[in-house]
């Protein structure tokens, strides 16, 4: 029972990390109808910038701040230089161009920092841990990650629902052409959304860096999960991304815990060790398929006038 609670906590934490990445992706996809495969690379870039700035300033917090800002600025620069020219084009063109950005940035990181994985130390203030169950300590840092994820969620919900920019973003998500016709500078709005998305991805990268291996292409796998999240949640919806991210985090973590054990009862230990992991890693995709079968536009689709 305790184990289940611990695993649920782990699932929530993974979900919130996914939310940080998916939030930006869903806005960009929803508002601009733009498929940005390079979003995962922005997460990686955030982690590398975090290591670099934390090393330069000697402070994790300054590193986090500077890396998030620079990641946001990089996102804006990419939008101006590359992505802006692709809004009117087909999704295939966008996929190809942003895939090119992935290759370029991965290689750039390799040239700048080398291929060897880097280390990001935890901030001293959060490096403690507390007893969660017998023999298992839970790092305070992971609690901080949960809190940061929740704060960002609340902040985004407020910004999208209660501010003028947020209203425009919502309007842009349902009908960009009409927003433009009403005299709003849609180009600036897009740049803003892009900057925020890139900054959130960068922020997630720095926050994850002390827990994982900081290496080129570290964002590639997360990108796939992030797409699963926005498809489940409904494209363009922050609330959908939040619910779906938690769902994916919980299903993935609890699935890895329980599926093999469940098969063990039915199939015996050795067969379960073969089948279990395979089924566990499929679970989130099964959930996605189920959600799409029932609600083809996702759980909370942004209202869209076709």
């Amino acid at each position, binding site marked *: 029972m*305790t*184990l289940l609670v*611990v*695993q649920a906590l*782990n699932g929530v*934490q*993974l979900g919130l990390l996914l939310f940080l990445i998916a939030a930006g992706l869903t806005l960009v996809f929803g508002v601009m109808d733009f498929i940005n495969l390079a979003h995962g690379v922005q997460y990686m870039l955030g982690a590398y910038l975090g290591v670099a700035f934390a090393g330069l300033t000697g402070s994790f917090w300054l590193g986090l701040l500077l890396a998030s800002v620079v990641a946001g600025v990089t996102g804006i620069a990419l939008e101006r230089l590359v992505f802006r020219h692709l809004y009117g084009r087909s999704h295939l063109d966008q996929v190809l161009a942003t895939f090119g950005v992935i290759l370029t940035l991965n*290689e750039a990181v*390799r*040239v700048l920092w*080398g*291929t*060897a*994985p*880097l*280390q990001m*130390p935890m901030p001293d203030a959060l490096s403690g*841990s507390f007893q969660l*169950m*017998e*023999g*298992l*300590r*839970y*790092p305070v*840092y*992971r609690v901080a990650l949960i809190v940061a994820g929740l704060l960002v969620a609340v902040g985004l919900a407020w910004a999208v629902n209660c501010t003028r920019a947020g209203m425009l973003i919502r309007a842009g998500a349902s009908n960009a052409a009409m927003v433009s016709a009403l005299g709003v500078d849609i180009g600036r709005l897009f740049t803003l959304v892009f900057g925020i998305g890139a900054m959130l991805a960068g922020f997630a990268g720095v926050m*994850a860096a*002390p*827990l*994982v*291996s*900081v*290496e*080129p*292409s*570290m964002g590639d*796998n*997360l990108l796939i999960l992030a797409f699963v999240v926005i498809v489940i949640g409904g494209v363009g919806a922050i609330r959908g991304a939040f619910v779906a991210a938690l769902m994916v985090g919980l299903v993935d*973590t609890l699935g*890895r*815990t329980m599926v*093999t054990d469940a098969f063990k009862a039915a199939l015996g*230990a050795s067969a379960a*060790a073969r089948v*279990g*992991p*395979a089924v566990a*890693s499929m679970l989130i995709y099964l959930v996605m398929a189920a959600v799409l079968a029932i609600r083809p536009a996702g759980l909370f689709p942004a209202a869209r006038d076709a």
Partner: protein
Amino acid sequence: MFGKLLGALALAAATVASAQAQPVKVGVVTTLSGPAATLGQQLRDGFALGIEKLGGKLGGMPVDATVLDDELKPDVAVTKVRGLLESGKADIVVGPIFSNILQAIFKPVTESGAILISPNAGPSTYAGRACAKNFFVTSYQNDQPHAVSGQYAQDSGYKRLFLLAPNYQAGRDALAGVKSKFKGEIVGEEYVPLTQMDFQSEIAKIAAAKPDAVYAFMPGGLGIALVKQYRQAGLANIPFLSAFTVDESTLPAQGDAAIGFYSGASWAPNMDNAANKTFVAAFEAKYGYVPGSYAAYAYDTAMLLDAAVKKAGGVADKAKLAAAIETADFASTRGAFKFGVNHYPVQDFYLVQVVKRADGKYQTETRKKVFTADIDPYAAQCKMN
């Protein structure tokens, strides 16, 4: 890209001086792009250092070396290696890092008559019935480093072991290797996706199972994440046994989190022999990082070739060269070195442990000899003719 160029230059520069004499043509096949490039660089640097130590020569003959990046793609490796063989640029092929690449280039190289030497990958495929006269492995047979931990756990009287590996063939083979030596109870056997980055779920299971020790085969980034999170969860009081999870390629990123963790290996930077001391000091001076086994075995390969070419009086007669390699006498970084009947090494294996050195860098150090002159389980099936 840059590093690849430099490495090629270093090798090429050594050859320029005596371009008139008929050179020994060596193709080095290694992984220099993607996340595994760190390992491939070690192989390339170790081999280049060996050639440099030998004055740019093998057995007194100048060396013409070509470094190929296999990109960790079997089809790419085959295309590049075939190109090299067809343009007559390889008497000897050294490489690769990964077993799946070796399986792709094995036939093209061995059937061309060239000598193939793997300084890292040692799959069971070519250790038994499919062993070949012109194929050699200077590292180990892949099962052996895993068996070390199984034997150590058995010898230490551990009763309950928890096993962790990625969900692919090598992961399953690794755990089979451990289980072949450990007779106690396996209280958990977890296979995770190769793309996993968060191990909280497995860590909670380990804590709940309370094993006497954990065995993990988690290469590259997987191991970096696992080791950090294992330490953060306060589990480090449970002995952490492994292979390819804490080594010189991952330690810079794992840092203090890996101190005290164990691995199974046939070499470590602290091995007390003259050849190894020379190698480690020269390597660190030249490349600025602590060498891992990937570099050491590649360096050994250069020394082995030097002795063999000298003995065979050249590389024109490949059968003579292969015979010379079988019995070549050279100063290995592992001390004594010899090949078994299947051309895989017969060597000692050690439990090694991660330490932080006085200069703040990390390395593994030998703690206990677990196997003496160990012969891999497939050698008996090899009928070399």
